[in-house]
């Protein structure tokens, strides 16, 4: 790995200052994406700003209508949180299915969301639940957060501090993992929220997106059969050696129906 200047700021302000001041700085939280990228020399940042130890960035707070999760909270903490399991079990389940135990012990929610990896799981939950991404300077709606392949609405020197998930009436996440990487080939998050029905898809497109035709159909009748014949167009979906676009489009339908069935059967609440 190419050398860099390592910083371990003691405050968020210091971190943003460092981020703005350096030539090509990157934030390091869990490092589950950044470090492999740096090892392959696909990223060669001048500075690394390690925010994993910043106080106030970790932790889970459940209020009457939301779950607030600090950006540096590890996947394992979300997965095993009795509070999250009680109010948004689908989110705990999603976190418990990310990567492997070691990734979950180190990877963070903020890192995953900020990266907008097309095959990451968390973006589906953020979008599916209509979460709010809180940064050091503002709050961003999930709907305007994911803007493209590895692209988000975040500014260069902006840091996610927490994500606020409204507690849904019911939600479920069904993931179809890539056989090799175990990232989501397709993952669909279905939620009955106060703001209406939301269906968010990860893995299939350049970034997480909402399947609005699915939402419309489910709003009329919330059952797997309501989705019969409803599809996402294969055009523009990801295609690789594991799944062509048409298969991915098909999987969106299958996983969505299974998520709906899970909710309908009271499985994941």
């Amino acid at each position, binding site marked *: *790995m*190419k*050398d*860099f*200047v*390592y910083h*371990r700021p003691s405050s968020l302000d210091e971190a943003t200052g460092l981020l703005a001041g350096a030539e090509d700085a990157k934030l*390091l939280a869990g*490092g*589950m994406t950044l*470090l*492999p990228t*740096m*090892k*392959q020399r696909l990223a060669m940042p001048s500075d*690394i700003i*390690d925010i*994993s130890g910043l106080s106030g960035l970790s932790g889970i707070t459940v209020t009457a209508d939301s779950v607030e999760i600090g950006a540096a909270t590890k996947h*394992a903490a979300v997965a095993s949180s009795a509070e999250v399991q009680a109010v948004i079990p689908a989110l705990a389940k999603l976190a418990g299915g990310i*990567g*492997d*135990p*070691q*990734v979950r*012990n*180190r990877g963070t929610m903020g890192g995953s969301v900020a990266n907008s990896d097309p095959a990451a799981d968390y973006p589906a939950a953020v979008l599916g639940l209509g979460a709010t991404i809180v940064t050091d300077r503002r709050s961003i709606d999930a709907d305007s957060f994911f803007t493209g392949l590895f692209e988000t609405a975040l500014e260069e020197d902006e840091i996610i501090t927490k994500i606020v998930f409204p507690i849904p009436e019911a939600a479920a996440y069904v993931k179809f993992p890539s056989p090799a*990487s*175990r990232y989501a080939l397709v993952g669909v998050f279905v939620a009955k929220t106060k703001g209406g029905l939301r269906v968010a898809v990860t893995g299939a497109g350049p970034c997480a997106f909402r399947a609005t035709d699915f939402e419309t159909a489910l709003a009329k009748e919330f059952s797997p059969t309501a989705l019969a014949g409803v599809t996402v167009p294969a055009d523009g979906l990801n295609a690789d050696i594991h799944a062509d676009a048409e298969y991915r489009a098909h999987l969106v339908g299958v996983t969505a129906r299974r998520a709906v069935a899970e909710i309908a059967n009271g499985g994941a609440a």
Partner: protein
Amino acid sequence: MQIALTLNGKEVSAEVRPSLLLSEFLREQLGLTGTHVGCDTSQCGACVVHVDGVSMKSCTMLAVSAAGTAVTTIEGLAQGDVLHPMQQAFHECHGLQCGFCTPGMVMSAIEFAETTPEPTEEKARAWLEGNICRCTGYQNIIDSMLAGAAKMKSTQAGA
């Protein structure tokens, strides 16, 4: 940078470059070559160690990030000539062949035993998502994990 940590129960301090991975620090700088590196995409799990009691892939963690933590590697498990119950279980169940993935398997298996109240074969197989073995077909590793978990429980109960 100067870092200090507890390694296999002993205080260690060392000068490291920031880009040094924990796996490189252990292997190259400290000569603890029991921790192996089998891939460069954080998937194979041969490099798994414990950091503050939980399993981590040491190839995907900076050495500087381990400052102030307690790290346990495969070399730190046995008490003298007495193997850790999980090591013993791998021996009894023929849970290793070439031995290359073994350190990561054992470290991962210990956390499995510690965090899984009622271990089952299905849970053990799912737990090994991040550990790849090419020799064993996993069957004897799974048996080792379950036997090791039982041994750890009974050792604890006895203690």
